[in-house]
């Protein structure tokens, strides 16, 4: 597909606030993977947070303020790529809803939504690559995040990319489509419920025999890693970009 004229030569990396502040290695891996796929990477320096946490918690005016800023930050980007299905869902699905009382801004949001992608989706669907030359000699379970499954409706893009990684053994999770229990503020306001959902997911991870659990979303992974650490489990939570960048 290298001759495809629609194949993007440049993309703006939307790091996302969580990756920026707590998981910088994931941002670096995402940039490295994009470059390896032949895409020039810009990182618009003004970017902060898309406002999802405020939006999901009912604070729509605050979320709209951050959404407007996001639209400005990425106004010139030919494509916006995030190592997060959750954040991409916010822009693609919910910006038009959030901004419905401001039609001109909502129109800008819809235009940007049309060129905003989650990382694995961008690599497989837009760039047309699945093999990035990665090697990761571990047993890996893929946790499809709710926003990947039901927000963006990703199909098999993450699995195809993982399938091309050398020496990687993919393990299936029982109940893979069930939520891990993170849910943003839900994780703290309904901590007991979130914890119960977490334990069910971790039991499935451990039963899979995987050494590593991966996902498109650092939010799920932070929650899963916190639970694994609390259980004293040897299983590690690693973002899919880090696996795709591994040599």
């Amino acid at each position: 597909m290298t001759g495809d004229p629609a194949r993007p030569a440049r993309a703006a990396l939307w790091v996302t606030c969580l990756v920026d502040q707590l998981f910088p290695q994931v941002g670096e891996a995402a940039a490295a993977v994009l470059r390896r796929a032949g895409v020039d990477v810009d990182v618009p320096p003004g970017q902060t947070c898309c406002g999802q946490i405020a939006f999901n918690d009912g604070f729509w005016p605050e979320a709209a303020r951050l959404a407007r800023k996001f639209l400005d930050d990425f106004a010139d980007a030919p494509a916006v790529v995030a190592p997060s299905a959750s954040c991409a869902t916010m822009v693609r699905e919910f910006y038009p809803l959030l901004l419905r009382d401001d039609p001109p801004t909502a129109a800008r949001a819809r235009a940007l939504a049309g060129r905003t992608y989650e990382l694995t989706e961008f690599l497989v669907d837009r760039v047309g690559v699945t093999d990035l030359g990665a090697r990761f000699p571990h047993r890996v379970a893929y946790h499809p995040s709710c926003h990947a499954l039901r927000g963006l409706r990703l199909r098999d893009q993450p699995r195809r990319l993982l399938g091309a990684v050398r020496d990687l053994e993919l393990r299936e999770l029982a109940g893979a489509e069930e939520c891990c229990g993170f849910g943003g503020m839900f994780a703290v306001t309904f901590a007991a419920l979130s914890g119960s959902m977490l334990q069910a997911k971790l039991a499935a991870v451990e039963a899979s025999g995987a050494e590593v659990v991966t996902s498109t979303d650092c939010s799920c992974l932070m929650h899963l890693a916190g639970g694994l650490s609390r259980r004293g489990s040897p299983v590690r939570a690693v973002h899919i970009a880090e696996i795709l960048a591994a040599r």
Partner: protein
Amino acid sequence: MTRPAPIDFVRNAEAALANPALHASVRRAMVRFRELQRAVIGEVPDWQDLREYAHRVKMHTLAHLDRYLEQLEAAVTAAGGRVHWARDAGEARRIIVDLVRSHGGRAVVKSKSMTSEEIELNEALQTAGCRVVETDLGEYLLQLAGDRPAHLIAPAVHRSRDDIARLLARHLGVPVYDDPRDLTQVAREALRRAFLGAEVGITGVNFAVAETGTLVIVENEGNARLTTTLPPVHIALMGLEKVVPRLADLAVFLTLLPRAATGQRMSSYVSLVTGPRRAGEADGPDQLHLVILDNGRSSIAADPVMAEALACIRCGACLDVCPVFERTAGHAYGSVYSGPIGAVITPLLRGLDVAGRLPFASSLCGACGEICPVRIDLPRLLLELRARVVGGGGARLTERAFVRGWTAVMAHPSRLRVAGRLARWVLRVLWRGRLPVPFPLSAWTRVRDLPPPPPAAFRDLWNTSRRKETGP
């Protein structure tokens, strides 16, 4: 009148979680439902088109409720029935109690109806001196136990078989049976006696067809069929959103409902009741009364953002796939309507001040929106309600302070740089473990550890590496 106390979902959920047997038995039932649903939904190639059609029919009907309800009234009347309008629960109770009394009725049988639970009809009938028997097996058991339904279509899902065996033994003087067939047989014999002696039968309504005045009742036990045919008087109670325009619409709704509800291709009994028994007919009541209940529904229908919630056909599929419902069962929602649809409808019916926390009791995983056979966008409605709660001043102070602070920081990258450094420093201190984790981070560490602190933010590392790449 004093305002009812707010529904404390957090406390209710914690109480439910303290009972691991509850989660185990509800999960077993929910997983079974999911498997059955997946199988029979998968065999309908145009499932998505049917959902879309049903959604549009419902939304169209809700936009023209006055017209279709008048048409329904005319058609029911023409078929020989009588229509009664109830503005609220109290009016509906009075109408039904008066109807039962005016027929000298003391013995009432009922088939399953969530709407009758909503208006607390049984209590009103009992106060008026009637003997009411619930004839759906699950509802019958709950009535014996003095309990309430915990699921829209599997009301006794929270009770184990042992529990039910002991309940029947205590109330009916039979041995404590172990085989579910024995249990069913015992209940069946008791219910047959109630049917044969009943003067009034009360049912709910799944669909009411405006063009023909036909009331559609879907069930699996045959008890609703008996309730509509044996007693001389049949009273049907429906929420006004149950009206559908045409008989032909049933072809779609009766494909969607059983598959989403019980994972069946077709329910065992689908009764289409058009008027009372006519001359020359063998079965059916002498009188048919239809009570059409508003109780807050018309204001939901008039709310363009929320009207979609009234498209619900009460199949319960959103409960079956909900990871929260699976862990709490229905009672935690403090309402007859539970799960995702309950978290939407209860605040709309009873007010945000009473039920405003329910829409927050979701991880927004989206499973409910995906399964809904009439394509109600439940995650969106939960989000919209959250925005109304917060917009109406209903947010908790800690949350408001957090989100305000977050937004102020995120509005400027320079502030994020400083706040991020501070946050990572705090994280490092906490990781050394010398200080207790403060609120609200303590809610995070109740069930999981904090992430390890990275040395720097991505933006700092990126700028450093770029300087190196393009350096002097």
